[in-house]
């Protein structure tokens, strides 16, 4: 914290426009959504105003400072520990009462607050008029109106921020019920008297207002109670029980009710509004979109449309991009390099490997763009939260709350942010459980693999084949979820409380920005990995060793050797020993799923046989083998980045669990699929073995459940 470089934190309820304001102030391009959980970590940016550098922190949306879930803890810990110079509290003017609850808590904490009332246009449309100066006089802080989705006068806002930093105002003190105040004073006296015996006072408590600490102790806030010595507990418990006896409610509910008492009085005084309409525009849409008859079919139609758009519309674009980039970066570029007289191997590396790699990345762009655009439209319109409500019925069956649908849906974009998005779930059980199911949702990186192989093997109905794979992933997630519910996660899921945001007509600007942000992120990350994998694959293809399997001393490439060593294990799922390239592609997919396409393209094309499609067809031999291969890709271990994220969020135990169990599951399913589709007398043997493995799989989960069950 420094007066020369002030730190400004943006705090508020979810979905009030914190990220929009952050982008407006800093010029950043953070993702904005019309559903809670968009920001799960705090984001940092800065702006310069009159020669000063202002650090801006975008905090996750929170309803209060009680820190029930990890994303709420991120916001609360930041305000408590980093002590920003100014907290800009953004409140939704069209829903003032609920939003002011956090404001009251910020004032109790003694944070320097600037109140910004967003969504003024919606408030005006709902005939709500707010007396800002009157509100300022009651709260003792500045309150400014703001319309975030139109052109924002950032200069005026920056001026206001500077003024607030220079002239901080004295906020109002919130008073509780008389008896509660007495006990609050008693708790403060205990803290004052015993301050020397509480080590936390020397570790940071001394900078927190005593009144706030007393409130949190009365609320039984776990984090604040942690450092309290056991011998002080009875003294504090006595005060809490007295408050509870007085009001016949739990102490945290007493304080929350009293805060709302203050807010209700304030709103009554400063807000004038016409009576609430019986039903809003969103309610009328919801009557249809959430109805018993139309809700579920609409949900599936919307999801199918997303994939139809991603596959059908992008199909011709993929062809054009592939042809154009191959002509430019492989053929023309290669010819130019040959003309310069570059050695053949270097020419190959720069044109076929690098140029071909870039062309491969180019083909990803249309389907990924359309899938991200569709998800952006769903998020910005507000349908995403409705989809979570619809999905809750199935989610409950597999032991997860409906809110877990949101991380799973993010999983269709990328598994890494999906695992991060599980932080919006309150209980550890739900977070671990949802994280283990996210790899079943085919991420954006798998889509190019599906598109490439499905268009080759099922050219007439590639869209149906791809949709089928996505759907199969969801079905497998449900089955795996059921198995986990019966074994490791036996307890009930956490309580589901979710806000349904009003429907918005998404703006083109927001959708394109949202899509661009995700697409850029994906392409840059995928691009780096693919190029790296292609170079490594090419090197491994050139370096050769004597083949120990043939015994003749014939030299083969390292890649061929590795692939051949793995292939016997994949034989039951239709990968013949001659098709070792498919095994190598699976190994590269462990680094990043998108690398599978690059590896297949690199290995199935040679100077002797340049026709990639014909080589792939010949390699797999049948559609049954391809279906099994696609199923294996869908289900086997998540990529290295996702495994790392699992490790970061839940530890090494769950990371290994995901790697081992998902790969084993993928092998079983792919084997069953191949043996059924290409049935022969020996299939019984493999099907029996698969059945035995399913039994072992379930029993091992039960054993894990006995010793490592996650209950809360």
């Amino acid at each position, binding site marked *: 914290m420094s007066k020369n470089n002030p730190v400004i934190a943006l705090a508020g309820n979810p979905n009030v426009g914190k990220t929009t304001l952050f982008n407006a102030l800093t010029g950043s391009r953070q993702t904005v959504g019309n559903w809670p959980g968009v920001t799960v970590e705090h984001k940092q940016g800065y702006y310069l105003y009159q020669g000063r550098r202002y650090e801006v922190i975008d905090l996750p949306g929170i309803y209060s400072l009680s820190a029930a879930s990890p994303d709420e803890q991120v916001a609360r810990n930041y305000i408590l520990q980093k002590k920003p110079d100014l907290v800009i509290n953004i409140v939704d003017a069209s829903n003032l009462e609920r939003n002011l609850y956090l404001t009251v808590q910020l004032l109790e904490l003694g944070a320097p607050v600037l109140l910004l009332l967003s969504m003024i246009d919606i408030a005006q449309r709902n005939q709500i008029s707010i007396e800002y100066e009157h509100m300022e006089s009651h709260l003792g802080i500045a309150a400014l109106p703001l319309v975030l989705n139109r052109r924002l006068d950032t200069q005026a806002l920056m001026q206001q921020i500077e003024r607030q930093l220079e002239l901080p105002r004295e906020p109002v003190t919130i008073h509780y019920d008389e008896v509660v105040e007495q006990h609050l004073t008693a708790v403060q006296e205990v803290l004052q008297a015993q301050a020397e015996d509480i080590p936390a006072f020397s570790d940071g408590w001394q900078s927190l207002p005593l009144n706030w600490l007393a409130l949190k102790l009365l609320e039984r806030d776990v984090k604040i109670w942690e450092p309290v010595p056991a011998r002080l507990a009875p003294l504090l418990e006595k005060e809490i029980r007295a408050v509870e006896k007085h009001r016949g409610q739990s102490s945290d509910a007493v304080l929350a009710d009293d805060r709302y008492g203050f807010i209700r009085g304030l709103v009554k005084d400063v807000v004038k509004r016409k009576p609430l309409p019986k039903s809003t525009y969103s309610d009328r849409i919801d009557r249809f979109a959430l109805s018993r008859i139309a809700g579920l079919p609409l949900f599936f139609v919307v999801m199918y449309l997303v994939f139809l758009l991603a596959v059908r519309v992008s199909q011709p674009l993929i062809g054009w991009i592939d042809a154009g980039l191959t002509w430019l970066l492989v053929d023309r570029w290669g010819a130019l390099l040959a003309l310069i007289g570059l050695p053949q191997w270097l020419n190959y590396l720069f044109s076929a490997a690098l140029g071909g790699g870039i062309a491969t990345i180019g083909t990803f762009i249309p389907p990924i763009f359309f899938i991200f655009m569709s998800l952006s439209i769903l998020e910005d319109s507000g349908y995403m939260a409705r989809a979570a409500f619809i999905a809750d019925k199935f989610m409950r069956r597999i032991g997860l709350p409906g809110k877990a649908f949101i991380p799973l849906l993010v999983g269709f974009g990328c598994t890494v942010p999906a695992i991060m998005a599980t932080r919006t779930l309150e209980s550890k059980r739900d977070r671990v459980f949802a994280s283990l199911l996210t790899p079943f949702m085919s991420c954006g990186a798998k889509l190019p693999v599906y598109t490439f192989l499905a268009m080759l093997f099922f050219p007439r109905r590639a869209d149906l084949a791809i949709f089928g794979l996505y759907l199969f992933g969801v079905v497998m997630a449900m089955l795996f979820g059921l198995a986990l519910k019966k074994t490791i996660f036996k307890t009930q899921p956490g*309580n589901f*409380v979710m806000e349904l945001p009003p429907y918005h007509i998404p703006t083109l600007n927001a959708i394109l920005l949202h899509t661009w942000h995700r697409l850029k992120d994906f392409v840059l990350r995928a691009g780096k990995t693919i190029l790296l994998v292609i170079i490594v694959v090419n090197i491994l293809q050139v370096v050769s060793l004597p083949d120990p399997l043939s015994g003749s001393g014939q030299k083969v490439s390292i890649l061929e050797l590795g692939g051949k060593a793995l292939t016997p294990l994949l034989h039951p799922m239709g990968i013949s020993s001659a098709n070792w390239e498919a095994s190598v592609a699976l190994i590269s997919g462990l680094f990043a799923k998108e690398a599978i396409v690059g590896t297949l393209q690199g290995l199935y094309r040679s100077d002797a046989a340049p026709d990639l499609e014909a080589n792939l067809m010949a390699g797999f031999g049948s559609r049954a083998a391809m279906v099994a291969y696609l199923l294996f890709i869908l289900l086997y271990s998540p990529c290295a980045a996702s495994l790392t994220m699992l490790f970061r969020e839940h530890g090494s135990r769950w990371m290994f669990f995901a790697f081992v169990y998902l790969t084993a599951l993928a092998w079983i399913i792919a084997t069953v699929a191949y043996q059924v589709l290409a049935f022969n007398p020996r299939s019984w043997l493999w099907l029996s073995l698969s059945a035995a493995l399913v039994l072992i799989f379930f029993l091992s989960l039960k054993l894990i459940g006995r010793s490592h069950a996650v209950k809360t």
Partner: protein
Amino acid sequence: MLSRRNRVRLRQFGRRFSLRSRTCNCRRGDCLELAKLSTGRSARILCNNDIKTIERGLYHGVKITSFRNEPDEPNIVVAVGDSRYVLDRRIAEQIRVRII
């Protein structure tokens, strides 16, 4: 005369009651569970001890309208002021309301 062991047991038995979370103090027929509020009906919250929902505005005395309440569904949809919430039926069963 009770033995020391039984005196301790009795004391613990009493404590169990004194520490039990207090249920809503409304008379029979005076209020009902929010989970039983049929679709379209409005009510006022009489008792709510769930801090998560209080923080979202379902506090004592607020008007609440049931937007969707199908008995076989795990959740209900309610309107509080301008907000719409999906509430777990287990939470809704703990909230007492009076129909208005």
